[in-house]
């Protein structure tokens, strides 16, 4: 439903003045936008019928709990795709211990992704296209540094999303995932800085002993460079 609204909205961009006014007000509702391909989508919208934009080019998260679950689903897609690549093309000098940990993490992220997709059923956003061109998969520091960013970001995202979830059953499911993400974060951080306090460092745990919490806008902005598909959350209004 959210996707259809996005299509309809895009399609009316070039219509009458009154609709243009409506479009302006609606454009302010385009609160979350992940990619730099907006212009591409707009051009496509002007050339094609409304339904001509393929799902691969844009995805709206939807509203309410569906929106929040899609938000999580998007992040898990990103993580699953990343670790799948990490295992397919191991970095130079990877140890057996590292391979075991990273393989587990990949499997977990795939499980999280598939679980959320199943929970969302027809409400799930499409598979996102990712862009890891900024990552050097042959380089340990590049891979583990990116992994750390993703894991810490995921923890902060779930921590921030908790209060946005209406149904406590979904809150419980998110809770089952987030602590595993935190375990990943600690393990990755320990690989980067063995036997240091980095696993729960002062950069992420404050003086009250509280982990980072981020709202969706902050998280999506951070994830933006890694996701090609345009993702919007306009229907959350």
């Amino acid at each position, binding site marked *: 439903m959210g996707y259809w609204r996005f299509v309809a909205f895009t399609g009316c961009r070039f219509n009458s003045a009154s609709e243009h006014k409506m479009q302006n007000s609606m454009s302010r509702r385009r*609160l979350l936008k992940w990619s730099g391909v907006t212009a591409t989508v707009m051009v496509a919208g002007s050339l094609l019928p409304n339904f001509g934009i393929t799902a691969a080019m844009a995805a709206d998260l939807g509203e309410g709990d569906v929106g929040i679950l899609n938000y999580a689903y998007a992040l898990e897609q990103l993580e699953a795709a990343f670790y799948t690549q990490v295992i397919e093309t191991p970095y130079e000098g990877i140890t057996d211990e590292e391979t075991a940990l990273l393989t587990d993490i990949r499997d977990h992220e795939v499980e999280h992704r598939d679980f959320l997709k199943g929970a969302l059923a027809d409400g799930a956003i499409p598979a996102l296209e990712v862009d890891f061109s900024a990552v050097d998969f042959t380089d340990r520091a590049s891979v583990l540094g990116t992994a750390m960013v993703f894991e810490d970001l995921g923890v902060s995202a779930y*921590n921030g999303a908790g209060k946005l979830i209406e149904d406590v059953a979904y809150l419980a499911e998110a809770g089952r995932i987030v602590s595993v993400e935190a375990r990943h974060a600690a393990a990755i951080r320990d690989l980067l800085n063995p036997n240091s306090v980095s696993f729960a460092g002062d950069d992420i745990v404050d003086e009250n*002993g509280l982990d980072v919490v981020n*709202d969706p806008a902050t998280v999506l902005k951070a994830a933006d460079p890694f996701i090609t598909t345009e993702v919007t959350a306009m229907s959350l209004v």
Partner: protein
Amino acid sequence: MTIQTNNLIAALDPEIKDILVSNRREFFRGSAAKLGLMASAPILLAMTAQNAFGQELPQDIVDVLVFALTLEHIEDAFYRSGLDAPGLIPEEYVGIFNQIGKHEAAHVSFLTTALGSAAIERPELDLTAGGKYADALTNFDTYLTLSQTFEDLGVAAYKGQAGVLAPNDDILTAALQIHSVEARHAAIVRKIGGKKPWDGAFDEPMTKQEVLDAAGPFLA
């Protein structure tokens, strides 16, 4: 328009927040009693500003926070004792346990402040659990086993109570922030013990009773 949506909007776009602020006020006024604390100010500020805060919270939330504080007291005492025990913690891990202990002490302070007059003092503890772990503070392997037990227990305990805290956004968020820190602790302690940092893709919650049954032997 739900409160959840309102909050999301507010977090995203100041302009839209302005537009909706009157709606928000209406909403909050209408359900203040149900929500308990409704301030959207940073939680610590809200908490320290009201010493009687604990009395204003619904009883079920107070009960959860007292339960959490009990667990944090156990952890805090456990790490203080371990770090004080000569030669127990190998030198290369002292920094890690210092960091964990620092967090547990912070959690005790945070929850004590949050509860105000409803806060509890540290209970009398028996870290040997009636002699079952008699070498808890002399044998690092035993100490590690207990550390992992407490950390995994803490993760499962907070997870199990999230639904009760859900009506209060600020307290739920703070509890989630503690929850993930406990998970980080659990991961590193497991790694030191030569174990995997996780049991699988999902961490399971425990009920309050299950947690109390597991923690009970450590309460003198």
